[in-house]
C-alpha cells in the first residue's frame, strides 16, 4: 500500500528568504488572502509544502519505495489551478452564507470588480472571460448580502476581486459659491483650458484681464464664449472673469463655454437641462488626431505617383 506523504519537489520551492532562511508564506497562501502581483506561474504555490525533516514528531514512512509527493490542492492537476481554487472557495463561501439576508436588487453597494485581464495578471493563468464570469456571478450574489450582517471573512475574501481604486467611491467635491459670491467652473476644449469665475452682475466680461473683444477678434468666438449665458437668458445677470490658456482661439472660446456653463450650474443648478440642450454640459473629448507613418497627416495619403 502506497503511503501518502506530503512532500514537495525542492526545485519548485525556489523562493527562499535570504535573511531568515525560511520559506515564503506564499506556499501556504490560498485565494482568501490577497497576494502581490506576480507574473510567475502560481502553480508552485499549489504544490505541496516543504518537508521538514528536522522535526521528530513526523515518523518517516514505513515504506519508502511507495512514498510519493502529494500536492496541497487537488486543483494542482487542473489546467488553471488558482482559478479553480478561487471559484471553489467562493462557492463554498456562498454555500455557507446563502441564508444571510440580502438587500433589494439594485441596492447593493456598487463595486468595480477586477476585469478579466487584471485577474489574469493576478493569478498568472490564461483564464477565459467566460470562466471568470462564473466568479463574477458568485461575487455579485455575495455582494447582495446586507452590509450590516456581512461576515468579516467573506468581506476579506471578496476584497481581492475588487479593483484597487473603486471609481464609484470617488465623491465629487460639491462646487460652492464662495464668500464673495463667486462660482468657479473649469472648462476644457482641444488643448485649451479655462477657469471661469461668475458673479452676479450686469454682463461685464473680462478674459485674462482684457475686454472680450480684445481677446477674441471673431464675433463668433465671443458668442461661443458667452453662449451658456445667452442660451439661458442670463447675459445681464452675471459678470464673467476668466483665465484661459493653451490652444488656439476657437479652443479657448469653447473652453470658456464649458467653464461658464459649469460655473452657472453652481449658481443655478436647475439650469442643467437647459444647458445640456444648449450643448454646454458635456466636454468635447476630441483632440488632434495623431499623425501616422506613411501618411502626410493623420489620414491624408501622399499623392499618387505613377511609378
Amino acid at each position, binding site marked *: 500500500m502506497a503511503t501518502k506523504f506530503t512532500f514537495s519537489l525542492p526545485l519548485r520551492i525556489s523562493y527562499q528568504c535570504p535573511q531568515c532562511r525560511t520559506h515564503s508564506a506564499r506556499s501556504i497562501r490560498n485565494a482568501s488572502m490577497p497576494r502581490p502581483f506576480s507574473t510567475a506561474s502560481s502553480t508552485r504555490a499549489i504544490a505541496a509544502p516543504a518537508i521538514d525533516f528536522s522535526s521528530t514528531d513526523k515518523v518517516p514512512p514505513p515504506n519508502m519505495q511507495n512514498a510519493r509527493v502529494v500536492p496541497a490542492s487537488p486543483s494542482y492537476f487542473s489546467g488553471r489551478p488558482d482559478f479553480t481554487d478561487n471559484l471553489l472557495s467562493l462557492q463554498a463561501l456562498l454555500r455557507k452564507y446563502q441564508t444571510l439576508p440580502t438587500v433589494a436588487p439594485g441596492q447593493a453597494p456598487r463595486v468595480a470588480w477586477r476585469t478579466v485581464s487584471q485577474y489574469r495578471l493576478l493569478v498568472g493563468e490564461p483564464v477565459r472571460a467566460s470562466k471568470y464570469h462564473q466568479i463574477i456571478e458568485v461575487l455579485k450574489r455575495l455582494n447582495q448580502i446586507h452590509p450590516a450582517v456581512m461576515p468579516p471573512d467573506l468581506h476579506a475574501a471578496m476584497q481581492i476581486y475588487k479593483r484597487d481604486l473603486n471609481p464609484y467611491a470617488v465623491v465629487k467635491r460639491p462646487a460652492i459659491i464662495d464668500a464673495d459670491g463667486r462660482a468657479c467652473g473649469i472648462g476644457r476644449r482641444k488643448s485649451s483650458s479655462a477657469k471661469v469665475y461668475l458673479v452676479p452682475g450686469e454682463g461685464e466680461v473680462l478674459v485674462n484681464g482684457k*475686454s*472680450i473683444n480684445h481677446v477674441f477678434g471673431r464675433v463668433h468666438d465671443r458668442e461661443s464664449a458667452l453662449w451658456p449665458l445667452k442660451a439661458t437668458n442670463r447675459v445681464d445677470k452675471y459678470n464673467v472673469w476668466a483665465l484661459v490658456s493653451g490652444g488656439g482661439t476657437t479652443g479657448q472660446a469653447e473652453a470658456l463655454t464649458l467653464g461658464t456653463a459649469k460655473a452657472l450650474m453652481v449658481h443655478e443648478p436647475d439650469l442643467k437641462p437647459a444647458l445640456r440642450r444648449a450643448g454646454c454640459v458635456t466636454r468635447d473629448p476630441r483632440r488632434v488626431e495623431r499623425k501616422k507613418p506613411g501618411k502626410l497627416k493623420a489620414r491624408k495619403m501622399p499623392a499618387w505617383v505613377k511609378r
Partner: protein
Amino acid sequence: MPSSICWKCLSTTLTQPLRHGSIKPRIPIYLPTLAFSTTPSFQLPLPAKKSSGVKVTPKKGTKSLVIKKGKFQAENRARRPAPGERKALRKRIVLSNVNALEVQGMQNIEVENMSDQRVEGQVLRLPGPIVDQLRAVEAFKPTQSWGLFQSPGTLMRRETVDMGKLIADMSGEEGGSRRTVKMVLVGEKGSGKSMMLLQAMTMAFLKGWTVINLPEAQDITIGHTSYQPLPSSPPSYIQPAYLTNLLRNLPTANPHLESLQFSQPTSSDLPIPIPPNISLARLASLGASDPEIAYPIFNLLITELLSPGRPPVFLGLDGLAHAMQDGTGYTAPNLKPIHPYQLMILEWYFKFLAGRRRLPNGGIVMAATSQSNAPKVPSLDLALSKLEGSVVTRAGQTVPQKERNPFMRYDERVMDTLKPGRGIQVQRLPGLSKEEARGLMEYWAKSGMVRERVSEGLVAEKWAVSGGGVVGELERAVIRMRV
C-alpha cells in the same frame, strides 16, 4: 544757321551756369535739381526682352510642358481699370440706400436739440445741407456703414450731448466764452472717435462756425502729394496740391464765407492782384485755381478768418499718430526724411493744438487718434498718457499712467506739443451705455437691419459681445455678422 557756341561748350552750359558775361546765354540753363519724385526706379516697366533668335527645341523623346491656350485665356480681354478708378471705388462714400426702410419719426439734428439731454440715446438724422458740408470736409469715411440706411443718422451719446453743450456755450455772445478748446480724442478701436469728430463738426456747422478739417493725416504724410520747400529756416515744405484741394472745398463746406467780406490787407506783397470787396469764398476759390498761389492765399484766408468779428473756428484732424510719427514719406534734398512738423500744414495745425496760436474768436481744435491704422508713436502714447493720467475702466481696473522709458527715444517736438499745462484735454470715448446701445439697435431695427425684436436680452447680449458697448464692435455683431 550755325550756333554761336560750339557743341562742347553747349554741353557744359547745360550743366553749369556760364561764368563769363561776354557770351549771353541764349539757351535756357537747366540746373540739375533733385527731382521731387518718390517713385522708385523698380516701378518702371521692364525693358522688352530681345528674342534670342535660336529656338531651342526639346530633344526627341523628352516631354515638355505644354499649356494650351484655352478659350478662357483668349477671351479674357476685359478693359483694365483706368488709373485712379479702383481707388475711387475704394474711397467711394455712399450715404443712402433706397432699399433700407425709412425710419418714421426720426428727428433732424438741430441747433435746438443738439445740446438737449432728452435726445441722448436717440439717432438723429443729419440734415441735407449739413451732409453736403460734411462731404466737403471729408468727414465721412468709407469704412463707416452709411450705405446701409435710408438717410445718414448719428447716435447722440452722452459725450455728443456734452460736446453740443460746449459748442452752444462757446457760440454765445459773451466775451468770456470766446476761448480755444483743445482736445484729443482717444479710445479703443471702434469706439467712435472719428464719428465724434463728425458730430462735433456737424454741430459747429449748425452754429455757423468755420470748419477746417484735415480728414486724414496719413494723406499728408505718406508722400502722395507734391511738395516744395519754403525759403525758411529750419526748412519747411508746402504741399500745393493738397492746399489747393483744401481751399477748393472750403467755400462748399462753409457757405457763410460768401457773406464775409475780404478786408484789403495793408501789405502789398500779394502774389496776384486781388480785387477789392470780394468774399472770402471767392478768395478761397482764387487760391484753389492755381497751386502756385495756394499757400499765400491760404495764409491770407486764415488771417481773415481769425480777424475780429468772424465766427468761431473748428480745426479738425483725424489720424493724429500719422502726423506725429518720426518721419514722413517725403525726403529733403539731403536725402533725409522730412519730419511731419516740417510740413507747413501740420505745423500750422499743431501751433493751434499746442496753444502757440490762439483762435481769437473762439473755437475748438480737435484731433482724433486712430487705432486701426496708426503707426506706433511712443512719444504720442506717452504724452497722451501723461495728459490723461491713470484711467479707471468701467470694469474697475486701473490703468496706470505711462512712465518715460529711459531706453526709448522720444520725439521732443511731439512731447512739447502735448505738454501738460497747455490746456489740452484728452477725451476718452468709452463703450456705450446699455440705454444708448438700445437706442442704436432700435434705429437699426426700424431701418430693417435687425430682424429680431430688440428686447432687453438681445441688447444685453450684444452689449456684452461687443466688449461693453464698443460701438464699432456692436455694429459688427448686430448688423454686419448676420447668419
